[in-house]
């Protein structure tokens, strides 16, 4: 039982140590500084998220976030809240916020991509993947 208690407490301890350093990255072809600031504002204000990547391409906005692992159980709620916030700020964009690791992983890979068309295709594909159910 002692061992079990240990395993339950470790995540709690780590919560205290993880700090506020969020890794937030934005991909934007137009390189609009205003957008960066706004994305940062939204994600910084959300306590449940520790990392996020936003991609602006062709009237589409994909925000892939990672919730803190021990808060993953309210993933859907986090997604809904963020979607609302992003939609309010970026009315002209088609917004998709996802806390799915797959989207986060792929979005980060796109950061280095120069070819806008490729990014566009990939984002569309990711949106389709996101809709798939088991």
């Amino acid at each position, binding site marked *: 039982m002692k061992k079990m208690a240990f*395993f*339950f407490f*470790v*995540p709690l301890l*780590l919560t205290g140590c*993880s700090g506020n350093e969020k890794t937030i990255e934005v991909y934007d072809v137009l390189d609009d500084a205003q957008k960066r600031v706004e994305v940062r504002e939204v994600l910084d204000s959300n306590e449940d998220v*520790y*990392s996020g990547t936003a991609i602006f391409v062709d009237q589409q906005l994909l925000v892939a976030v*990672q919730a*803190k*692992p*021990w808060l*993953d*159980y*309210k*993933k*859907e709620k986090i997604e809904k809240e963020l979607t609302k916030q992003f939609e309010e700020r970026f009315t002209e964009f088609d917004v998709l916020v996802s806390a799915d690791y797959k989207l986060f992983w792929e979005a980060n890979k796109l950061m280095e991509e120069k070819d806008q068309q490729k990014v566009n295709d990939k984002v569309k594909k990711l949106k389709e993947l996101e809709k798939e159910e*088991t």
Partner: protein
Amino acid sequence: MIFIDFLLAFVIGGFICLIGQLIMDFGKLTPGHTLSILVVAGAILSGLGLYQPLIDLAGAGATIPITSFGHSLTQGAIAEAQKHGWVGVLTGMFEVTSSGISAAIVFGFIAAFIFKPKGKAN
């Protein structure tokens, strides 16, 4: 963060197994009884909307234990019921599947032709 993610899978997956062992030992039940109880528990949790958050939280820690069987079957039935109402509850039963069952059948069938049982003690 990824470490905590794995830790959650370990702790929650292990915890479900621990509950299974307690049911088996204290109830003096066979593995068959225990697994049946867990599957029903998974279905009920799923109906209450509690199993999906558990999967979001623990990943494989919640999808690997047998309770996820009850969950995926229930989600299938509920989805059909949502779409087709009363008829859906019945027809849903013919649509739902679980990858675990199909995989076990296929691999079991293959294994039957490859392996022969031996009695080894240790």
